[in-house]
C-alpha cells in the first residue's frame, strides 16, 4: 500500500515537473516511479524517511484544516455586531518542549495561522512562547491544545 502511494506521488510529481497532466504522461510517470520504487525497495522497506514523510503529510493536513477553521472563525467574530463583548484578547505564556530553532520557528508559524492564536514573543531563555489569543476561553485548555496538537506533531517531524 505504501509503495502504491509512493508511485502515485511520484507520477504526480513527474507530471508536475514536465508540465503536462495528460493521461499518457501520468502513466509514463507512474512507470518510472514504479521502476524507482522497485529498485529502492530494500532501503524503503524500513526507512525512517518514509515514516517522516507520512508524519509531515499528517502535519500538513492538520495545518490546512486548522487554517480554514481559523479564517472562518475570525471572519465570524469580525462580522458580529456585539464584537467587543465576544472578544477576550489575552497574552498567554505557553511553556515549550521544543528546543531547536527549526522546531520553535515551525511551531510559532503554525500557531499564528491557527484558530484564535498569534505568537507574539519568545522568552529570552527560549522556554516560553508568548501567544496572543483573540477569544480566550480557558487558559489551561488552550495551552493543552497547542501542546497536544501542533507541538507533538512538530516534535515528531523535526526531531
Amino acid at each position, binding site marked *: 500500500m505504501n509503495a502504491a502511494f509512493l508511485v502515485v506521488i511520484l507520477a504526480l510529481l513527474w*507530471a508536475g515537473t514536465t508540465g*503536462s497532466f495528460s493521461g499518457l504522461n501520468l502513466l509514463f510517470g507512474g512507470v518510472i516511479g514504479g521502476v524507482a520504487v522497485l529498485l529502492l525497495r530494500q532501503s524503503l522497506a524500513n526507512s525512517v524517511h518514509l515514516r517522516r514523510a507520512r508524519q509531515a503529510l499528517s502535519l500538513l493536513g492538520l495545518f490546512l484544516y486548522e487554517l480554514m477553521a481559523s*479564517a472562518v472563525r475570525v471572519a465570524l467574530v469580525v462580522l458580529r455586531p456585539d464584537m467587543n463583548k465576544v*472578544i477576550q*484578547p489575552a497574552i498567554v505564556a505557553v511553556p515549550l518542549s521544543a528546543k531547536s530553532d527549526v522546531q520553535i520557528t515551525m511551531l510559532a508559524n503554525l500557531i*499564528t495561522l491557527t484558530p484564535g492564536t498569534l505568537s507574539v514573543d519568545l522568552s529570552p531563555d527560549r522556554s516560553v512562547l508568548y501567544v496572543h489569543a483573540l477569544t480566550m476561553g480557558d487558559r489551561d485548555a488552550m495551552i493543552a491544545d497547542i501542546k497536544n496538537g501542533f507541538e507533538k506533531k512538530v516534535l515528531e517531524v523535526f526531531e
Partner: protein
Amino acid sequence: MLHSLALYVGGIVLLAGSLFVLMAAIGVLRLPDLYTRMHAASKAGAVGGGLILLAVAVLGQDAAIAVRAVIGIVFLLLTTPLSAHLLARASYLAGYKPGSETVADDIAINAEQNSANK
C-alpha cells in the same frame, strides 16, 4: 464539460477568496488594537489570498500557471505568519500595550517577576 466545471469551481473559489479578504479588511477596521487586528490580517488575509491563487490555478487551464500559483500559495502561507509575528513582537517591544479589553498579559507579569528577582 470539464472546462465548464473548472470554470464554476474556479469562480466559486475566487468569490470565497474575495470574501475572506473583505472579512480581513473589515476586521482590521473593527478590532480594537494591533494584536487583535493582526489576527484578522494574518489569517483571513492569508486564506483569502491563497484561495484567489488557487482559483487562478484552476481557471488558468495551464500546468505552468498552476504550478506557479501553488508555489505562490506556499510562500504566502510561509511568510504571512512571519510578518504578523514580527509586527506583533516589534510593537510589543516598542511599548504598544494591548488594548483595555485584554484580560491577561503574561509578558508583563513575567517581566515584573524577572525584575523583582534581580
